[in-house]
Structures are given as C-alpha cells and as structure tokens.
C-alpha cells in the first residue's frame, strides 16, 4: 500500500513536470508580448526593451522556464501582470472557494445519487425505477446553463428568496455565505446527479445478480443487510471514479456556472486571466488545476483500496 502510494506520487510528480513544460510552451506561443502589454500601447521600444530585460524575457526559453519552475518549487507562483499582486494568495482564495463548491455539491450528489441509484436497482423495472431513470435522462439531456438560468429566474428574480449571484465570505455571516452557495450547488447537483444515479443503478444491478448476494440471501439475511452490507460496497467502485473526476472538474472551474452566478472560483479566475492576457496568472492557474485533477484521481484510487480488499492486496504485491 505504501509502495503503491509512493509510486503513484512519483508518477503524479512526473505528470506535473510534463504539464508545466506544456503549459509554459503553450502560453509562450500565445499571441502578444508581455513586455509591450505591461508598457502599454504607446510605449517606446526602449521602454519595452527595458521591461523585457527586467523580467528576464530576453533570456532563452529554457532559462525562463527554469526560473519559473524554480519559483514554483519555492512556493512562488509569480506576480500577476494585470492585478500587480503576487499570484499565490489570489489563486489560493479562488481555489478555496471552488473547493467549498465542490465539497458541498459532491456531498449532495454522492448521497442523493447513490441513494437513487440503489433504489432504482432494487425496484428494477418498477415505477420507482422508471421515475429515477426519467429524471436522470432529463438531468443529462438539459444543459447546465439552462438550469442555472431557470433557477436564477425562479428563486432569484420572481420569488426573491436567494441572491442571484456573487459571493460573501463566511466572515460576513454564515447565512449570507450559504445563501450565495445554494443556487450554484443546486445547478451542479442537477448536472452531475443523473450520471451518478445511472452508474450506481447499473453496477448495483450487476452486483445484485452475483452469487455472493444469492448466498447472503440463502443465509437468511434480510434485504436491507443484503443490499447495504453485501451489495453496495462492491457496487461503488465505478461511482467513486466518476465522483473523483467530477471533483476535479469543479475544482478546475465550472466556467459557465461560475459566470452565470458570478461565483469567484477557479473558472472565473482562469477566464479573467485569459481575457486579460495575464500570462503568469494563466500558467499558474492551469498548473494548479492540473495538480488538483491528478490528486483527485489519486484519492479515488486509494479509496478503491479502502472499499475493495482485493485491490488493497494487489497494491501490496504489484
């Protein structure tokens, strides 16, 4: 298990190194030149040159990359050109807000999605199953921005129950903070719930047909024990994978939803950086998003081992 985790962490580091090179190269290839942007439209070539030298932009690419990468290793993500502030605090704040969104939304998705999936599998072919399936398809088929707009209209504009957007820190009161979270979370849940429910349903149906479930029934175990103790734990593996991917997705920024609700998470930060051509900010944001994705997947794989002792065994030997 330890060896497995070590190996995975090593691979993760490798992936991030490769990612950092790619990010660096791609942002270099973007149109526009940082020095002239800083200097402004009407600056003389001498001023631009001076800024270039000051920022080290006249150095070869490899040297520039080395300085950037070394900075990151020391926890220095650089300075935003547009905001003229160090990037790290800005990024951490956005990440924290995305994290809140991800944790709240995915907790709801996991509990409700797995619950509905189990219910549909147990009542397979009956009305409950068909209703869960119908709602799931609706959730999958209708795009998230549509839900977002409907929710904003109904709860924000007409009923005036909830703020239609923005964000207030917890420090200014828990209730306003929570009120701002409700609509984005509900939209995310509507978007992600259907897939989790469908997935749990289908793997639950498979597991319910296994011999060990039949044997549990032959031992006289009541259905609740058969379903929760014997079937569910084994049926959760694919669900965990998708939940982890979804977690990475939200951390990486759900741009459309964050924009509609003006929620200042990773998505809006990245969008802002790209629109304003803030190269260091773009680079740092994408790198953090990649790291978040990789970590979420690693956590999912470790969770696998927690759920399935056979995989735990495989990790010990392979």
């Amino acid at each position, binding site marked *: 298990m330890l*060896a497995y985790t*070590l*190996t995975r962490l*090593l691979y993760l580091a490798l992936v991030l190194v490769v990612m950092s090179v790619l990010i660096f190269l791609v942002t270099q290839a973007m149109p526009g030149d940082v020095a002239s942007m800083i200097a402004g439209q009407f600056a003389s070539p001498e001023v631009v040159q001076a800024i270039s030298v000051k920022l080290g932009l006249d150095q070869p690419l490899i040297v520039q990359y080395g300085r950037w990468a070394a900075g990151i290793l020391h926890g220095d993500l650089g300075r935003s050109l547009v905001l003229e502030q160090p990037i790290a605090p800005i990024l951490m704040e956005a990440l924290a807000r995305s994290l809140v969104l991800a944790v709240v939304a995915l907790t709801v998705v996991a509990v409700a999605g797995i619950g509905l999936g189990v219910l549909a599998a147990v009542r397979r072919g009956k009305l409950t199953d068909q209703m869960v399936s119908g709602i799931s398809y609706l959730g999958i088929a209708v795009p998230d921005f549509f839900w977002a707009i409907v929710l904003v209209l109904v709860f924000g504009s007409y009923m005036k129950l909830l703020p239609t957007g923005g964000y207030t820190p917890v420090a200014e009161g828990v209730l306003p903070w929570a009120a701002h979270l409700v609509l984005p979370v509900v939209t995310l849940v509507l978007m992600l719930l259907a897939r989790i429910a469908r997935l749990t349903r289908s793997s639950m149906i498979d597991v319910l047909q*296994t*011999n*060990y479930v*039949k*044997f*549990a*029934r*032959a*031992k*006289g*175990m*009541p259905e609740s*024990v058969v379903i929760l*103790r*014997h079937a569910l*734990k*084994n049926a959760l593996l694919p669900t965990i994978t998708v939940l982890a991917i979804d977690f990475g997705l939200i951390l990486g920024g759900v741009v459309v939803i964050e924009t509609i609700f003006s929620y200042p998470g990773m998505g809006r930060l990245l969008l802002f950086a790209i629109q304003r051509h803030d190269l260091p900010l773009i680079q740092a944001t994408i790198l953090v998003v990649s790291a978040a994705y990789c970590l979420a997947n690693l956590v999912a794989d470790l969770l696998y081992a927690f*759920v*399935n*002792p*056979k995989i735990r*065994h495989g990790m010990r030997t*392979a």
Partner: protein
Amino acid sequence: MTTAPHTRSAVPPVAVPAPASRPAAPLLDVRGLTISYGTGRGTLRAVSDVGFSILPGEVMGLVGESGSGKSTVAMAVLDLLGEGGRVESGEILFRGTDLRRLAPAERRALRGDSIAAVFQDPFTSLNPALTVGRQIAEPLIRHKRLTPRQAAVRVEELLGEVGIRDPRRVAAAYPHELSGGMQQRALIATALGCEPGLLILDEPTTALDVTVEARIIDLLAKLCDSHHLSALFVSHNLGIVNRICQSVTVLYGGVVVETGPTGRVLSRPAHPYTKGLIAALPRITAERRARLPSIPGTVAKLSGPPAACVFAPRCPFAEETCRSHPQEMRAEGDGTGVRCWKADALATTSWPDEGGTAPRRGALPARSAPLVEVEHLRKIYGASTSILPWLRRAGTVAVDDVSFTIDRGEVLGVVGESGSGKSTIGRALLALTEPSAGTVLFDGADFPQQVRRGDQTLRRRAQLVFQNSAASLNPRKTVGQAMERPLVLAGRGDAEERRRTVAGLLTRVGLPAAYADRYPHELSGGERQRVNIARALATDPEFVVCDEAVSALDVSVQANILNLLAGLRDEMGLSYLFITHDIAVVAHIADRVLVVYGGTICEEGPVGRVLRPPYHPYTEALLSAVPRLAEDGSEPPRILLEDSALPPGGRGGCAFAGRCPRKLGAVCDEQAPPVRETDQGHRIACHIPLATLAERAPVFPKLAGGDAAAR
C-alpha cells in the same frame, strides 16, 4: 499401500448403506411441484409435477443435465427462485409444514438456520469485500442471536470442524486470500453454523479440481453422518452422486423420470434416459471404445403439461404410444419409481452402442519427423525489470522446462489441475504467447519466431477450440460470418466459394448448412461447440489444440463432441493437443498423456501405461480422486492431498513436493527429480525409485493386467 503407509492418509470410501425400510417421516417431502418462468416469449415450464422425499439423515441426489430443472427445484425449496420464477402448484413439506404457506419473513428465518445451502462456485459465493469470519458469523448473529464475540469463537470452531488448520487466520482473511478448496470449506462452515436439519448442496464441487473435490465430498459425507444431516445434493456428476448419495432422483425436461436407491439406479438403470446418461460417460476401462454411445437431439423445453413422454424424441426405444401419451410414474417398491411404461420390457436391454471397441493405439510408427516438437519450454508471467526497485518482480513460473513431441495423427492429452500450466502450454504451441525460453517447432519451423517476423501462414495449419463455446463466438456475427473469417484472412476463394466451404464444414460437424444464417444465441451449447470446431477446421489445419473443449458440456453432448473429434481425426489425420482436467476424457480419446503439475511434466507415456503402476505420486492421487460408478470396481482408498501448498515452481526442487503424500525429504525440495523411463515412451519424474513406485496397487484393478490394455 505396501511402502511408507505412514505417508499416506487414506480414508475408506463412503459406504452407501442399503435403503432402510422407510419408517421415519420424511424431513423434506416435495409433492406435485410445478414451476414456470416468465420469459419474453411466454412462459417456460421448468419443473412439472416433481415429487420426492428425503428422510432424516438421508442424502438424496438430484441428477440431470443443464435445463433439467434440478437447480430450480433446489432454489424453490430455499424460496430463492429469482426474477420471473413462480411456483405454480405443489407442496414443499419441511418437517410436516408446507413452506409455501409461510410468509416470506418466516421462510427467511428458516434459511441459513434449519435449511442451509452451499452453492456451486466458491470463488464467487463469498463477498470479496468482507472477511471470511464475518460472513460465517452473519447467520449465527442473525438466527442464533449470538453476540459478535460469541460468534467469532463459534466461527473458529466451525472452521476447525471443516478441516481448516489455522481457523483464526482464515477467519480474518478476505476470500481472495484463500484457495478454492478453503473457500468451499468456509461456505460449508457457514452452512453448518446454525446446525441445520437440511442442506441444499447445489453442485458444491463442480468448480473445484478433482483432488480438492474428493476431499470436500469426503468432508460433506462425514459431516452428514456425524450431524445426522439430510441433504438435497444437486449434481450432474453421477460418479460424485455414487460416492455420497443414498438415493437418486433423475430429472429430465423438468420431469422426474426415475428415482430409487443409488446403487440400483446407477447399476441397473430402468429409464432409457438414465441408461443413456450412464452409457455416455467416458470411463477408464480396459478396452477403449472407438466411439462413445450418445444421446441424440437436445434437451426438451416444455411450455405446458407434457403431452407425451418428455424423452420420447431422443429415445431409441420410443414407440407410437410414447409420443402420444404422457407417462405415469410407476412405483416399483424399495423406493424405486420409473416414468416409462416399457421399463420392465427393457430391463435387460442396454443403451445401443453403435461404436464398438477399438484397440488403444500405442505410439504410431515413427515414419517421419514429429509434427510438433517442444524443447525446454519455459514461460514466466508478470516478471518486471522496472527502474523502481519496489516494482521489480521475478514473476510466476507457469511452465518450467517442458519438452515433448506430437506425431502426425496423434492425440496427446495434457492432464492437470488449475494452475498446472496446461493452458499456457497450449497457447505457447500456437504462438499465442511468447515463450520466455525454449523452442516450439511446428513441422520443423520455429513457430513463435515466424509469428514475430509477421509471418502468420503457420496459423492456418494450427488451430484452437476453447472451453466456453458461447464466449468464443461474436454474438453480433452469424455462424456463417464467423466461419468465413479465417477463409477471408487466408485469402481463400471468392464469396460464393467461401459460402460453399462453410456449408460443407457445417455438414461435416453434423449441423444443417442452414445454420450459417443463425446467430450464436440461437444455438445450444453443443451446437455452438460444433461451430467452433467447424471454424477451427476452415483452413484445413493439421493440428488442433482443444483447451477443455468438452468440459462445459453435458455428458450426452460431451459424448457427441468427443465422437465428432475422433471422427475428424480418423478422416483427416488431425493431431490434437487435448488439454483437460478430466482424466476419463483423456483415457477415452488420447494416445499419449502428459500429466502436468506446477508447470512441469510429472509423468508421460501411452495412455494405457500411465493409467497403470508405476505411477508418479501425483498421477496416483489424481486417479484415486476420480469419482466412479459401481461397475468400474469399488473405490480404492483415496489419497488425500492438502488443499493447497506453496506456489509451485521455480524453487529448484520437485514442483509437487509441497503436496506430495510420499515425499522423501529434503531431496524433494532441493533437487529436480530425475526422469526415469519405465517402458518405451513411459517416463516418470520422481526421486522415488521406480521399483518402489511399481509396488503400489493399481487404482483401476481392471486395467492392471496384460499388455492389451497398454497397446
């Protein structure tokens, strides 16, 4: 028995007592049970008017082929019929109470308590996510209201009782950490926990290796005896039934066709179907039958009450009356019943045997070079030379330094248990897996090397038939499309010509040419296996590897397929590598045998020689574990092997040393056994001197004498 008796743990075969005069009230009494399944195409009647009774302390065998309804009956007793299954009518009396009148909760309270079950496949019957101990404890906590702590103590007792040496460790283990035999013991311990009156055993040993099967059957027989348990023993294996059951009920097409004491039913079967079933069984006998007697046609499927004798369409003795009148069950006294009006007239008539006998062929005259030559073949799986030190693996040795040859027109049997490397040998011969070392020559050419260079021409001459007939065929392709594929790849003929070839091949394997337009799911298992064989023949191969090709088939179908393969060999001069765990099948079809264990060859030689002493200790154990019918002679003392031992291979010594009941000592662990030749072409790899090995009594005494058996 003459040497080193202390190394041999022998148990006498389970005695089958003569049936008592039925004084006691039956523990389980099933009457007029009719069960149907709702399917997409209407209702299918799985079980029609089935009745039988089991006395306290009696083990009754419920025998039949797939589709006979035997498992359905067992599941109906447990109230676990599953989706679509419905008991239409009948009574299931357990201790005098009709279970059908009980509420679902009351029946659940009986399950695992008074009526316990063990199912076929131990590998999938235990939950992979829970410890074994917890799973055994569940019914104890539920039904006997034990605290988890009390249950844990009882679990260890139970595991000890089913012959597990280290109960504490096994209780804490997860299922995947145990061998199949240990898993099945754990399931039996679960079933015994609440001291049930009735055990439902649904093919409890079918998925296990023969040596393990023998031990589990002995354990079950012992437990039934000591706990005065009754059991409903569902099985397709007549030899196993003979070993453990006092009475037998034979099902065909969901109808009871015969019932009676085991000894009588198996030695003097009264119903034609029972006669056919016993006749079709491949046996280890002195003279070799050129063809096995077989039952033509496929299993009947009913949608309503039978309007005629269910077996009439396949019965060689059927008359007009049989086809127009349903048969009544006729009681014959001493608990015997037969559903055939001609039973008395047929009492002395046996199942027609069209095949006759043929001499066993010895080694063919060495006219030319062998077709296949394997030298020092070695295959290691999972070896890794990663740069990360903790990822480096030495790998598992699947095949370790194996050499043999196959002549043209010869059938070489490979016998071994799971993990013996027999399938890997087959795959290596077809260049489907790259050997780690050694050479595989096909007709003098280096097969794996040719494939490495991208030359696939040899593949046309060497083909493969697998065990699972359904999984071997693409469900989206018609039979014709599947069979045409190798012809297209070989660039043979135009579309019209290929169609003719396919039709010809289907005819050759005994299927109508019109089957080319059918999809695999429209065929029965036997028909699908015929298609697989026909496809293998499409490119006119000289050599076919049959990897457990008849293992998944019912006895009557198995006989058909074995006859087909024998016929093709005779007509086309095919060579086969016949891989199987069933030594009786090898005794029937093979000319020579390799007995493999842990990736090495223990013994090889002509079939007749391998079946007689001197034996390699493993061969002897394997032979003594083979379940047999009464007419093959009484069962010999069985040689019991440990369920599992250290993973064999790669340790320098004899691969079998860890489980060998005749192990000499350190020499077996440390030195590779010498290969000694007893007779022409008969070799044994063992440290025990040949003379000592030869002193053992033959496992099949009828085979012992005379060279007639050997040649």
